[in-house]
């Protein structure tokens, strides 16, 4: 599994993912809703499915494209990990800054 970020960093592909979040759709409907040409949509869908973000399911004569939860989860987990790392750093930095300001005797009334 690779290229998740680059797959989603393209605005049209991001739009497709947003659209498919509501429900799975065939290529024609996606093209119609996003006012894109069908070959263009097919190309984007191929990139998205290679990145593991989208999967296709044949229904009757149609191929229905939907989101693939596992692929999105991987990216989401990574961003969450990245957010958590920086979040923890900043929370600890908050503490350091508060201590430094107390040492300086900032008259804010919070001194212990």
């Amino acid at each position, binding site marked *: 599994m690779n290229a998740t970020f680059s797959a989603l*960093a393209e605005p049209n592909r991001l739009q497709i993912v947003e659209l498919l979040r509501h429900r799975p759709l065939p290529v024609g409907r996606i093209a119609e809703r996003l006012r894109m040409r069908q070959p263009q949509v097919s190309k984007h869908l191929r990139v998205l499915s290679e990145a593991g973000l989208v999967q296709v399911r044949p229904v009757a004569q149609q191929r229905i494209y939907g989101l693939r939860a596992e692929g999105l*989860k991987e990216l*989401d987990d990574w961003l969450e990990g990245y957010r958590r790392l920086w979040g923890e750093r900043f929370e600890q930095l*908050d503490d350091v800054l508060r201590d430094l300001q107390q040492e300086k005797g900032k008259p804010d009334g919070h001194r212990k």
Partner: protein
Amino acid sequence: MATANRSDLTITVVSDTELLLTRELDAPRDLVFKAMTDPTLLARWWGPRKYRTVVDTMDARPGGKWRMRNIAADGGEHAFRGEFREFVPPERIVWTFEYEPLPGHISVETMTLTERDGRTLLTVRDQFASKEDLDGMVNSGMESGARESYERLEELLAELKAKKTA
């Protein structure tokens, strides 16, 4: 802010090689700058909470090297290193960032401090050498919480989309 973010931390996916973080800190800029460059102070906040952080080198000047280690309770450690490219107190630091077990995958972190009413807005621009490097980070096995639903997808999409409205 259009997007709601926990603890005011905003992450924006600027492009497929670049992430941007912003966070407000309740202290004047010179103090934040000091906390970001003083080895004793850095050791108190730079690592994830469950690790102890050791600052081996912090030669804060253009061309100077830095090296820090995050040490786990079981003794396992992760070492990071890099070089200062810019050092402009109290407003800007640019350094390279490399995880030692993955040599050659070097990203550039630009930290900018802006003071407003005694508070400081810190922005960190994390620029990866290639989209493969950024994708590589996604696959590098950063810890994950098991979630099967799309519950955070809204937030994820907002982050990805922020670049378009910026």
